[in-house]
């Protein structure tokens, strides 16, 4: 339980688990662990899918190809149900978001102490293994989506169309322009913030509960036994949460982008 050599209180244990491995100072701090795991998992996803796509046959598919195709089909049908235009970006974007976020969330399934303890043995003081519990990761994903929302809004409706959308809705009267602008700006900005915070909050809370349950191992036998049961229960429940969060992020991205394509 005690991860570092020094005496650990429960508070410092939790604190240790929630601290990133960082390089740099101030704003120019890089969360090495988050970046490493997120980029590593993203590359793993792309490599697996790229290989499947390269080997894809139009005949009888292999088991792995079937698995990949099920995911691709699932994403594709989700996109087609919601988005009725032609856009070559949205479907691959949705696939990347879904699988990547799922894989990053899945790091939560690994028992909380394994990887940080291993890192300690290797001389790395801190390791936060779930990238989606890092607000920077979720926000940069959401900001990417936000940029695309604005880009497609302007591309489809033109600058004037986009401005009109911000100023003449929901009240179509010139006197209401300031109110409209305020409302629509909040609506617009709420999109990426809600996307990022929803994912971050769910995963952060989930991770925290794993850590809190793990604290029970430190006390007596009865509590430790209870902790094993709770850990298992939370893990099974969390399988639902991580899949759902990945799906929600993907679905909302599609919905937001299709809204950006709609002309009012």
């Amino acid at each position: 339980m005690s991860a570092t050599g020094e005496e650990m209180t429960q508070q410092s244990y939790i604190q240790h688990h929630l601290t990133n491995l960082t390089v740099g100072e101030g704003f120019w701090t890089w969360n090495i662990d988050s970046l490493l795991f997120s980029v590593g998992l993203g590359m793993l996803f792309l490599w697996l899918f790229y290989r499947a796509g390269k080997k894809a046959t139009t005949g009888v598919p292999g088991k792995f190809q079937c698995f990949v195709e099920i995911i691709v089909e699932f994403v594709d049908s989700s996109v087609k149900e919601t988005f009725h235009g032609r856009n070559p970006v949205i479907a691959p974007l949705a696939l990347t978001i879904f699988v990547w976020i799922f894989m990053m969330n899945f790091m939560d399934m690994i028992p909380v102490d394994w990887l940080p303890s291993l890192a300690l043995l290797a001389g790395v003081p801190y390791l936060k293994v779930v990238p989606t519990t890092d607000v920077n990761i979720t926000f940069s994903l959401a900001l990417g989506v936000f940029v695309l929302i604005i880009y497609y809004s302007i591309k489809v409706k033109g600058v004037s169309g986009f401005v009109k959308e911000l100023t003449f809705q929901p009240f179509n009267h010139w006197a209401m322009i300031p109110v409209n602008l305020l409302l629509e700006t909040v609506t617009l900005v709420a999109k990426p913030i809600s996307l990022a915070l929803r994912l971050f909050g769910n995963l952060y809370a989930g991770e925290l509960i794993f850590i809190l349950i793990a604290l029970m191992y430190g006390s007596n036998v009865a509590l430790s036994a209870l902790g094993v049961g709770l850990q298992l229960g939370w893990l099974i429940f969390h399988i639902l949460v991580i899949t759902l969060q990945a799906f929600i992020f993907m679905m909302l991205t599609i919905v937001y982008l299709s809204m950006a394509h709609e002309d009012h």
Partner: protein
Amino acid sequence: MNFNATLFGQTVAFILFVWFCMKFVWPPLMNAIEERQKKIADGLADAGRAAKDLELAQIKATEQLKEAKVTANEIIEQANKRKAQIVEEAKVEAQTERAKIIAQGQAEIENERNRVKDDLRKQVALLAIAGAEKILERTIDPEAHSDIVNKLVAEI
């Protein structure tokens, strides 16, 4: 909630990953899926067409069978007719032949009778001459008295 440069790192990774997925992952997978869907659709269409073809072929076969039966019946009927005709012809021919043979036989019988009559007449003449010789006790020279003999023959 401390924002830092990780944001930029992750954004760059995000852009690169989406770009890579769009360029190298999505198209081949989607192509494979769509092509297979087309293949399956074609296969199903082919199967449907084959079933229809089979049905048509069966209907055609039944029709042809019916037609063949009708033709066979016609041929048998014709053959029967022809048989009757041949038998009839043979009968007629046989009757003609019979009549011919009978006529020939009658003619032969007539000839034989005439020949026998002539022979008989000649022999009767000879007998008559022999009788006459006996009566006259004198030889009748057939050369010298041929006129008498011939007269006699004609008379008999």
